[in-house]
């Protein structure tokens, strides 16, 4: 679209070139002030205008009173990862307003609550003061309700300043509020009051505009946890045990709503059991018990829960019990940043538990993959008789993402190798841990069926499932478990690969880092003329494509949202030293979602790149 100069634009200068459908809006409010409705209405109305958009909530671990930021990014090219720079600030929180304004780049715009008097802070950004309290008092007679509708005023102001269609906002509001007619009426009045005030008192000085496009037609807006929950239901989950933890809770909570709606027989009876356990150890224990008894069982948690599940994860590995575990990754333990995102559980989950254990992980990057991989996970868990971990993260799980509509699953579910009379007749003698098909996967029997019983234990068993502490039995079983893991390489979702002929640099990423990498690749090409190959991992164990990719490039940057290069650490275990020597890291671990500029800057620095002299002209915004 339009190209603009990147030189500072002062408020006193003439309105610079138009920047259309390319901005990030940050709304700074106080947690619990009811701003979410206004933010989602703004997001949705831009989406309805056909402009690619994403919404990210940076919130504190708090019910009410602490600062929170909501970022909406609109981008005509479809880049919806976090943008490092804020172009348009809506400053509603007196506590953070000063710092929020001071950290803006020159030329940005600030819409603020008039009494905060932010316009005295600097003269190189555009200021739009709005008397929120005065405006809300006029449209909302009930003082108690004012707090709830006040935020809708900034939507009204922005509709005028950015040229977002007011009709689209009304449509979005009605969709958001459903049948709450009185609330709709109040919010509409606030919306219109904001728009009317802007028309009368404010003059457009910033360069940002929203114009209709056709890039969101047929698409949906959904959070990763909602998509995953729907996938679990379609996978035929029958037992779910969970324990509340941010950012995981909305997955089982959505699942409860879905199951209530779609999984009751006509007589009202449920084709599922969902239970809030006393802790994560009990959650995974119930999953292991249910999986062992033949159910499609799952739990959902975050890093602290994964740590508590470690012992059971080992038992499930050795006893070969299926189950699905969603790990919605977040920053580290206990208090601190539990509401911030990270890819911090990769290494600990891959090797979760004591002894020699290797766990299968699926790594979704999009809401669509949250949905599809939920189904993959249940099939793989039963096929390989083990836990399968779906490694989502807070950014994907709790933020709003665009997506194409999901496909209804065409293939039936895979219940794996469960012994039946026909198989028993074919194989003659059955042993629970016998590798009959030479793929490392034994046949299991389900309690309550008429197939032979066995006694399930941890590591000490022979191939008949009998208690054994013999060294040869142990080694035999361990080698078969490794064989089974190797078989899984051919069944887990393979990576997505974009090769670039003649390029020296390859990038490897996974999960939500994808969105920043995609955009960074364009920045590297546009700003430095450097083309890059790209491989997005979607599962562990690694598949042969990883080695092939590494062989093709001179230097490979592994992009991760953790400090210790955890995925690179896993590659170190699996790849030859020659390949490992070519790997480098791009690491981002601030708690905020990774952004393209940070990736580009890191590669620029490590490559010792020199920005071409005419860089400014190359910046395609």
């Amino acid at each position, binding site marked *: 679209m339009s190209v603009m100069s990147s030189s500072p634009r002062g408020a006193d200068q003439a309105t610079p070139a138009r920047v259309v459908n390319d901005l990030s809006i940050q709304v700074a409010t106080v947690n619990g002030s009811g701003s979410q409705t206004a933010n989602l209405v703004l997001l949705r109305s831009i989406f309805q205008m056909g402009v690619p958009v994403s919404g990210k909530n940076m919130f504190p671990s708090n019910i009410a009173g602490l600062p929170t930021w909501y970022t909406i990014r609109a981008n005509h090219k479809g880049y919806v990862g976090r943008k490092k720079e804020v172009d348009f600030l809506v400053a509603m929180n007196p506590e953070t307003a000063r710092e929020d304004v001071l950290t803006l780049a020159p030329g940005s715009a600030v819409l603020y609550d008039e009494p905060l008097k932010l316009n005295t802070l600097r003269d190189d950004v555009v200021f739009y003061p709005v008397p929120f309290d005065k405006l809300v008092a006029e449209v909302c007679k009930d003082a108690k309700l004012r707090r709830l509708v006040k935020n809708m005023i900034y939507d009204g102001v922005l509709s005028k300043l950015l040229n977002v269609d007011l009709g689209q906002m009304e449509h979005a509001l009605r969709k958001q509020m459903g049948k709450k007619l009185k609330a709709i009426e109040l919010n509409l009045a606030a919306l219109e009051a904001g728009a009317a005030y802007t028309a009368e008192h404010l003059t457009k000085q910033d360069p940002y505009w929203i114009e209709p496009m056709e890039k969101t037609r047929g698409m949906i*807006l959904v959070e990763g946890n909602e998509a995953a929950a729907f996938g679990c239901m379609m996978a035929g989950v029958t037992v779910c045990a969970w324990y509340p933890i941010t950012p995981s809770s909305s997955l089982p909570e959505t699942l409860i709503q879905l199951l209530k709606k779609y999984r009751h027989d006509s007589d009202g009876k*449920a084709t599922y059991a969902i239970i809030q356990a006393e802790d994560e*150890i*009990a959650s995974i224990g*119930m999953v292991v018990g*249910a999986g062992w008894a033949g159910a499609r069982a799952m739990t959902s948690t975050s890093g602290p829960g994964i740590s508590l599940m470690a012992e059971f994860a080992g038992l499930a590995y050795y006893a070969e019990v299926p189950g699905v575990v969603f790990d919605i990754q977040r920053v580290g333990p206990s208090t601190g940043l539990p509401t911030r995102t990270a890819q911090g559980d990769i290494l600990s989950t891959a090797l979760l538990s004591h002894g020699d254990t290797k766990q299968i992980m699926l790594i979704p990057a999009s809401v669509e993959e949250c949905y599809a991989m939920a189904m993959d996970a249940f099939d793989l868990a039963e096929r390989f008789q083990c836990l399968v971990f779906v490694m989502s993260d807070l950014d994907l799980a709790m933020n709003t993402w665009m997506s194409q509509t999901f496909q209804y699953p065409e293939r039936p579910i895979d219940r794996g190798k469960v012994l039946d009379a026909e198989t028993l007749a074919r194989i003659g003698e059955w042993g629970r841990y016998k590798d009959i098909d030479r793929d490392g996967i034994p046949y299991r029997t389900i309690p309550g069926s*008429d197939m032979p*019983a066995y006694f399930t234990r941890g590591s000490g068993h022979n191939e008949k499932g009998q208690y054994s502490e013999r060294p040869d039995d142990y080694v035999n079983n361990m080698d078969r478990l490794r064989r089974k893991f190797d078989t899984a390489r051919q069944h887990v979702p393979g990576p997505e690969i974009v090769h670039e002929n003649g390029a020296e640099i390859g990038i490897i990423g996974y999960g939500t880092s994808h969105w920043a990498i995609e955009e960074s690749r364009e920045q590297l090409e546009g700003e430095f003329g450097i083309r890059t190959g790209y491989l997005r991992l979607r599962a562990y164990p690694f598949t042969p494509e990883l080695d092939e990719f590494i062989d093709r490039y001179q230097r490979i940057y592994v992009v991760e949202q953790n400090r210790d290069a955890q995925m690179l650490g896993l590659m170190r275990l699996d790849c030859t030293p020659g390949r490992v020597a070519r790997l480098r890291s791009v690491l981002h671990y601030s708690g905020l979602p990774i952004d393209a500029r940070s990736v580009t800057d890191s590669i620029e620095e490590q490559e010792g790149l020199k920005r071409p002299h005419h860089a400014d002209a190359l910046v395609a915004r």
Partner: protein
Amino acid sequence: MTTTATPEPGKKINRIGLEMAPYRGGKTTLCAGCGHNAISERIIDAFFEMGVDPRGVIKLSGIGCSSKSPAYFLGSAHGFNTVHGRMPSVGTGAVLANRKLIAIGVSGDGDTGAIGIGQFVHLMRRNVPLIYIIEDNGCYGLTKGQFSPTADIGSTTKGGTPNELQPIDTCSLAIDLGASFVARSFSGDKKQLLSILKAALSHRGTCMIDVLSPCVTFNDHQGSTKSYAYVKEHEEALGEINFVPYFDDISIDYEPGTTTEVKLHDGSRLYLKKVSEDYNPTDKHAALRLLQETDKRGEFATGILYVAPGKQDLVDLLNIVDEPLATLSLSRVRPPKSALDEFMEAHR
């Protein structure tokens, strides 16, 4: 399967036509004279006499001497030796997966009272349909005799160290938390333990049975309150238990006023001879009072302490379909495309 073989003439068979063999388990590896072995024997007898098909039974345990014992009974049933203190969650998951399974869990006093107290509490609270047996010897056998949380104050280890901490009374706890069948017995009391186990098989809900089971190696000495000698001397049985299974259509003579009749889930009946005028096994407060009073005297009240025959169990509470969830067909568990369309429409 051996369980369906035609019995040899003259061999004892039960009401579903099975011999004793499928009810037996592997050879025990516990110490000679261990109370736990006697409990395994009673379990075999109870399941045989009640005619429970072992193929519909799951045996669960945690970790410890006690938790090894499911390998020694009902060899033709599926078993799961889980992790230390966490058998309740595995059992809960399994009965949710298949409500038709008859679940029996064996734990110890350490496995229950220490590492497993959290899961024990919630198992009782949920009234999960499962028979939960504590083989209670007041010490850790497998790690060589350390105290467990059921050791009494003043009780000593083999080396003479006294326990100074308050013991946990698992029966009081279970009654208080919502278990619907709570009993205490002694591994040496064959008749009483067998009656309790048979009654438990007729009950639906959590059956918590604490069985005092002296550890012959580490806790059968003077100074121990869980030794054979001490328990024999201080056991106060709540009178005689007469259990009449639903398939035995007989009536028994009893003097009204001296015996309490309790009807169990499957139609079986319990006749409990009263020890004292005011004791009623369906009265929660009476049960808790009795436990406190006997404890004060340094005695163990044994028998069926509390039973709530009509209490809803977890499976019914969750309103689960009658068939096992584990084997529902795809069409029962995957909603049609219209559900996906609806979900998509809601997010447009």
